[in-house]
């Protein structure tokens, strides 16, 4: 059976991270499984976790009173779900719904925040990795806003 550390090492997000940090982070991980239609988290809820998706597809949704749930993005295998746990007020900005059977690793954000505060080098390393994801998603969102298909 694979340990969390081994699983983390294989992911794009944690690739090439110092093995000591991997061991440290693995202590904050647990298995997560969601059936199709399950809400992983809901807009406005406490953001204390992020997920490494290992299998399945997740919809990021925003609620519009007129149109119902609008899907604004989908995430897949090897994607990271959630960064609201990093910044106060630690509340989810969107809802996340499993579109199919979804499995992954849930990382305890509170536990991670504590470790990052104690070891700022780890905090900086994690922040750099999240920044890449945030920039990629910001660029994609800008293209979406541009209505690029005319």
């Amino acid at each position, binding site marked *: 059976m694979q340990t969390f550390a081994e699983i983390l090492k294989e992911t794009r997000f944690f690739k090439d991270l110092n093995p000591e940090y991997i061991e440290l982070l693995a202590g904050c991980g647990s298995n997560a499984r969601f059936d199709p239609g399950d809400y992983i988290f809901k807009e406005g809820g406490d953001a204390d976790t992020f997920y490494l998706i290992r299998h399945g*597809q997740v*919809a*990021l*949704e925003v609620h519009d009173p007129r*149109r*119902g*749930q*609008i*899907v*604004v*993005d*989908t995430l*897949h295998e*090897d994607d990271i779900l959630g960064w609201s746990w990093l910044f106060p007020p630690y509340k989810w900005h969107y809802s996340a*719904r499993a*579109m*199919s059977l979804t499995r992954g690793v849930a990382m305890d954000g509170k536990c991670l925040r504590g470790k990052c505060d104690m070891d700022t080098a780890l905090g900086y390393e994690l922040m750099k990795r999240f920044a890449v994801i945030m920039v990629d998603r910001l*660029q*994609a969102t800008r*293209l*979406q806003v*541009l*209505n*690029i*298909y*005319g």
Partner: protein
Amino acid sequence: MVEQLLTQPRTTTDPMLPNLFRIHRVLKESYDTFTVELVSLEGYQTFPFAPGQFNMLYVFGVGEIPISISGDPLHPETLVHTTRAVGTVTKAMRELKPGDVIGVRGPFGSAWPVKEARGADVVFVAGGIGLAPLRSSLYHILSQREKYGKIVLLYGCRSPEDILFRKELEKWRARFDLEIFVTVDYANSRWHGNVGVVTKLIPKAPFDPLNTVAMVCGPEVMMRFTAIELVKRGVNPENVYLSMERNMKCAVGFCGHCQFGPTFICKNGPVYPYSQIQSWLSMWEV
């Protein structure tokens, strides 16, 4: 005017003179896009073209516009064009009925590199109506499937209602030798597919970047960011081809309306290697 053209004997093949075609069928593809199927009224049994080329379609009394050919090059007896009803000419074209007559000049322009792509993986990246000009190339490549490596189609559009050639996409998806990924900008929770821009599909798409030819068609801003993402993935800029669009009028490189850098899109394009036009794409005025 149509009668006049029909009675005038054609002595030369003047590229400025339209050939007469009859509307065979008008198919509604989505709420704002449609396909017209045309057959020659002047006795041409076939209308050979290369995938990626375009024709100038003339709705008599309304105007003439360039539209890429979206049909199968192996079936040139019917000329097929797909477009969105957005302007005066396309809106008038959508109202045409079987039997109505239309003028056609062409085919014009450069083609998708279907021969050069032999032996390589082929990635098609289409945005919105941009799937139409790529369809001819897809038909051609699928007809010689054994000559190519992996074939991947990445298609992005605004919403599930905007998906073009939906039935054909479903049919192609059922094949085991072609991978199709569709994404939309927004959807409600009944949609089970991807949401996000088409560029997001590139990092994980199953192709070998070192041995890939990419054919990209869509609005210019979409193509620009797609090309950047393909190169980031490792595809050689010389192997990335874009189909450009400008206001084409004469279609034979005389009038200069479609000038793009030192080239004319109607004559040197519409299909260009990204390496040739890369530096012009981000210029404010070219």
